[in-house]
């Protein structure tokens, strides 16, 4: 990397590209070699270590009204130039521009794995929507603060381009992303714990390495008045899947859930179902998956009229090491489908 310049692609809107103001906000994505508009100041600030190889331009209205297609095109244009770092904006307090910069950052990070630096006024809606996808330097509310913002952006670009470890928001001058990042430190964990305990015992200041979050508490739902008329669904984090795990749900840190048709199934057998869960001895679940997902008992209750009916589909994922964010996302999608299917109650089984 020492003799090779860091490659930067710059994303800006139609206004900063000199195409026009609001009346030109509907221009579709385009690209140019080298710098355009504020790219010139960025180029100066980057000096010899990095080079702005291309600029991608899109009208703010066009981007926000054609989010999916515009972001796809912009990512393709960026990818072509093989950048090490992408700069979006700075957008200052321009709301739609900020949101576009944030969406570009998300798409670039998710699809290309390339880090993105931007600059925004803290109240720009793009900050809260996309802060976790980009290092967003805090700017003033107008382009008058361009001169302060650009050197700060350039500093982060060089740091990221060289692959140097990124410091905290306070150390580096970006707005906190809310992202946990591993770091190797000087002392082993046990020694850090001992030193923290000594500080705490002596009422001296110490910094916890993990500030505890405050939790959501979910209110229990209302009781079902008449279970014999209720449509009941099964949802499990115990990993019960049709034999062979057709959706390849991961044994830990699941990134997906499965939806499986159990119409006509009255018993889960060793030949037909198994668990994908990696967090427990699967022998008992694989021998008889009803132990985790009690289809057999519910079919009996259905036949006896004790419940109205068992819903045709069950949903399964693996709860082992799965992030709360993923679990919450699965729950939202599953719940929407269950409500749409007229399910009255759900039995959630875990392991």
């Amino acid at each position, binding site marked *: 990397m020492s003799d090779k310049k860091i490659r930067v692609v710059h994303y800006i809107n139609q206004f900063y590209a000199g195409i026009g103001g609001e009346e030109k906000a509907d221009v579709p994505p385009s690209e140019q070699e080298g710098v355009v508009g504020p790219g010139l100041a960025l180029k100066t600030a980057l000096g010899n270590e990095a080079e702005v190889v291309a600029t991608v331009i899109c009208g703010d209205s066009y981007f926000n009204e054609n989010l999916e297609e515009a972001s796809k095109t912009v990512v393709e244009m960026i990818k072509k130039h093989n950048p090490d770092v992408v700069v979006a904006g700075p957008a200052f307090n321009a709301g739609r521009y900020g949101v576009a910069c944030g969406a570009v950052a998300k798409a670039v990070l998710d699809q290309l794995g390339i880090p993105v630096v931007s600059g925004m006024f803290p109240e720009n809606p793009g900050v809260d929507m996309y802060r976790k996808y980009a290092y967003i330097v805090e700017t003033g509310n107008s382009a008058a603060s361009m001169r302060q913002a650009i050197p700060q952006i350039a500093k982060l670009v060089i740091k990221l381009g060289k692959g140097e470890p990124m410091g905290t928001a306070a150390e580096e001058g970006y707005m906190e992303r809310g992202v946990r990042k591993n770091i190797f430190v000087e002392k082993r964990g046990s020694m850090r714990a001992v030193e923290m305990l000594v500080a705490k015992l002596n009422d001296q200041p110490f910094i916890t390495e993990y500030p505890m979050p405050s939790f959501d508490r979910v209110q229990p739902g209302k009781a079902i008045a008449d279970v014999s008329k209720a449509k009941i669904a099964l949802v499990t984090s115990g990993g019960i899947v049709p034999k062979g795990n057709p959706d390849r749900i991961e044994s830990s840190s699941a990134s997906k859930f499965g939806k499986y048709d159990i119409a006509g199934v009255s018993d889960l057998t060793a030949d037909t179902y198994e668990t994908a869960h990696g967090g*427990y001895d699967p022998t008992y679940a694989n021998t008889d998956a009803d132990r985790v997902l009690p289809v057999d008992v519910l079919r009996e209750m259905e036949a006896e009229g004790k419940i109205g009916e068992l819903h045709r589909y069950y949903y399964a994922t693996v709860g082992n090491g799965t992030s709360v964010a993923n679990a919450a996302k699965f729950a939202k999608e599953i719940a929407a489908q269950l409500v749409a299917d007229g399910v009255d109650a759900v039995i959630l089984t875990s392991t």
Partner: protein
Amino acid sequence: MRLELGNIFIKDVQFGAETKVENGVLYVNKEELIAHLQDERLATIDVDLARPGESTRIVPVKDAIEPRVKVEGPGGVFPGFVGKVDTVGSGRTHVLKGACVLTTGKVVGFQEGIVDMSGPGAEYTPFSQTYNVVIIANPVEGLERHAHEAALRLAGLKAAAYLGEAGRNVTPDEVITYDCPPLQEALKQYPDLPKVAYVYMLQSQGLLHDTYLYGVDAKQILPTFIYPTEVMDGAIVSGNCVSACDKNTTYHHLNSPIIHDMLARHGKDFNFIGVVVTNENVTLADKERSSNFTAKLVEWLGVDGAIISEEGFGNPDADLIMNCTKLEKKGIKTVCVTDEYAGRDGASQSLADSSPLANAVVTAGNANEIIILPPMEKIIGDASADVVDVIAGGFSGSLRPDGSIMAEIQIITGATNELGFNKMSARML
């Protein structure tokens, strides 16, 4: 209780006609070792060697054990398994420092790990720095998983004890003495210093998530008191197939870092009174009972502060928070040691439970962070997709066509050890 640990520094490992330690080299008689490990539950047993810096990947690794031998004093190493159930922790023990036994073979419970002897993965595991004697054992057909786990666990312990014997009559390179007096005497020491204890949580969720204390499954214990030196003789043994990154292997227990670092500051910054071992059972009643007993014992020790270490994640987060809050409510200041599951992007909530009273936390890092492990020239065990894609931390496609692996660091043995064995932490960006 007073224990002398005699460390014999091992600088290489080789196969040889006789198992012995000479000039810092551990020679292993392969046939004799294999014969020593015969077990009707194991169909095949083989032994291989792996040294730091080699282009070698060992997978799936179940346990790591340091070779030790009891030279003086009651009992033998790994009481309840290899040694009889004598109370250990006094006298003299020799350690082959720098040597390690690793057990591998057919995957037991999806939660064995990877040890790379070089490359980026090597930075995350302590076992890339040790001279490893790898036991590759496969079960007889039809053996149930719990029996497979027990057989492999015992093979590792027996191998470590067998190799440790080679150090019995070797003069150690250093001898460290640990003196841990009984409670009444301990309380009188250093009257001007605050008193502290260690709450040592052992994985006991069951179904291949087990730890043993003097041979007893930790699920079945009530929290109890042990001397710090007892763990140095193998009173605590891992029977885990929990995620590789944050299971405490038997090696970690033998070298339990919080115990060692508390002993190092004993008499300087505080008076280290003792260790309370507790479990992490899955039912709420068990959790309540164990955390109540833990808080009661720590209070009974009369200490001002305690370090609490967790093993595993998710369900045991609840035990950690219960232990912490119950101690804090008794006015005992706590520091918790844990790791995080903050998602691959690091943006999710890290623990399954939380309390504002847990205001002093040391983290061993985010286990979900992605790493790419380059291909290695030599594989010990099985690095096919059948293993790599299914063990915890892997996913469909983890094993890539060129033999490299893209996976969460969860897949690396000891990567986010919650005894604070490593130098990794995490912070908020």
